[in-house]
């Protein structure tokens, strides 16, 4: 098997194995920590419920990421074009990043109603700053020789943006996407929980916590971890296709050159 696939599988199995052994050997009581085998069994027994909930959460996270990306490309392009706009926007972006969004979930739900809108709004909001910073950095990294060359044939701003600046931002956008995947899933989960629509893993998790159903809660957490892994794999695949020209995607050279 390919090392890229084998190694992570080994890592996860080793982690779960250690967890299982520690719980069994020390005879940890289930309300403190459950054995992974028990959580997995619960998850499999209720696979249909969890699968449909995971699908909802995945679409919420994906939707939020896409909204964040689109807004960030616009904001980031403006920041790269105007340093005044950049300095004016930076503190606001930082503010968005550091504010514990759990605190205002209730307000947003009151404002936008229950269901999908508040989930997408908050997920998009918290993922936007990282994408915006990545856009600015990436666009700034565009090769000055090429910029001058495009200027020498009077290329328009839009052409420079499309042909040079946006593609230059792709590597840093992918880095930001890896970071944002976790954030998007957690935001989606928490807003689903603070929502009155009964859907998504966040909703299962909140009810399980309220009713002290440990198995159900841990199964939701495992389902989230699975979603995160799938998202990361998809991003890696996309990155390999889109960035096949980039240094990061080239096989390491052997020492003999």
């Amino acid at each position: 098997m390919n090392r890229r696939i084998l190694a992570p599988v080994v890592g996860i199995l080793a982690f779960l194995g250690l967890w299982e052994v520690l719980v069994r050997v020390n005879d940890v009581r289930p309300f403190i920590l459950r054995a992974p085998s028990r959580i997995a069994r619960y998850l499999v027994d209720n696979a249909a419920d969890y699968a449909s909930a995971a699908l909802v959460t995945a679409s919420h996270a994906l939707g939020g990421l896409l909204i964040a990306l689109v807004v960030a490309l616009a904001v980031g392009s403006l920041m790269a074009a105007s340093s005044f706009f950049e300095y004016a926007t930076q503190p606001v972006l930082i503010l968005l990043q550091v504010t514990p969004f759990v605190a205002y979930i209730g307000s947003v739900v009151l404002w936008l109603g229950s269901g999908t809108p508040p989930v997408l709004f908050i997920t998009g909001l918290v993922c936007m700053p990282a994408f915006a910073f990545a856009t600015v950095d990436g666009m700034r990294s565009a090769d000055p020789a090429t910029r001058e060359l495009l200027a020498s044939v009077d290329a328009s701003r839009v052409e420079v943006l499309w042909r040079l600046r946006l593609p230059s931002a792709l590597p840093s956008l992918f880095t930001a996407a890896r970071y944002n995947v976790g954030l998007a899933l957690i935001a989606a989960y928490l807003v689903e929980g603070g929502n009155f629509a009964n859907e998504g893993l966040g909703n299962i998790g909140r009810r399980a916590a309220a009713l002290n159903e440990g198995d159900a809660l841990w199964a939701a957490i495992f389902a989230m971890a699975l979603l995160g892994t799938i998202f990361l794999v998809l991003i890696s695949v996309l990155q390999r296709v889109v960035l096949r020209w980039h240094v990061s995607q080239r096989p390491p050279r052997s020492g003999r050159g």
Partner: protein
Amino acid sequence: MSRIVVRDLTKVYGELPVVDSLTLDIEPGSFVSIIGPSGCGKTTLLRIVAGLEPATSGEVLLDDASPAEARSRKRVAMVPQAPGLLPWRTVQANARLLLDVNRSANPTEADDPDRLLHEVGLGDFLQAYPHELSGGMQQRVALVRALALHAPLVVMDEPFAALDEITRAEMRLMLTRLVDGRGATVLFITHSISEAVALSDRVLVSSSRPSRMVADIAIDLPRPRTAEVDDDPHFVELCAQVRHALHGGRA
């Protein structure tokens, strides 16, 4: 082919004069090199001619048009010092880059970039990415990218400076072959005396900053220039002339 007329051109950065009341008249269709010490303002002159920078005073005309007009009509093709290839574009797509922007100004008789790539020996590399090419091959793509514009003026800013001696000699021959009979006026900036003499119809020798032309040497070597031109006694003589001018007339 463009006639380049420069009258009383001065460029000052803050307090620093970079070009000082320079006057030039460059024949249409000629190959003119400017050689001079590092930092003498050659690149600034080239950027002003290409319309990338305004002059402080004086005038530059390319066939009676201002550099800015010529630039917006894509009548100036530039070969920068670094190839500046886009890493996500194939060789073929990179060669087309300048034709892909500001399309409304494209010439009616643009050269086919693919044919030019074959001509410079990159026919087997159309689908390759820049990182798969050597430095010389990358600079050949940059050359094709400029020539595909079919612009009447080609400006080159030390395009071979980063290449090794052997590749440089090859590039020199390739450039002669490509430019001969194409009819474009070429303004070529270099640090290499032999390169300037081997390629040009005229070599202008610049003083150190601020740039003034201290010598204007006609190169009357026969064309087409081949690799053997280096052995021509007249070539050696002309090189010596340029070298003396460069070092302020000292023998």
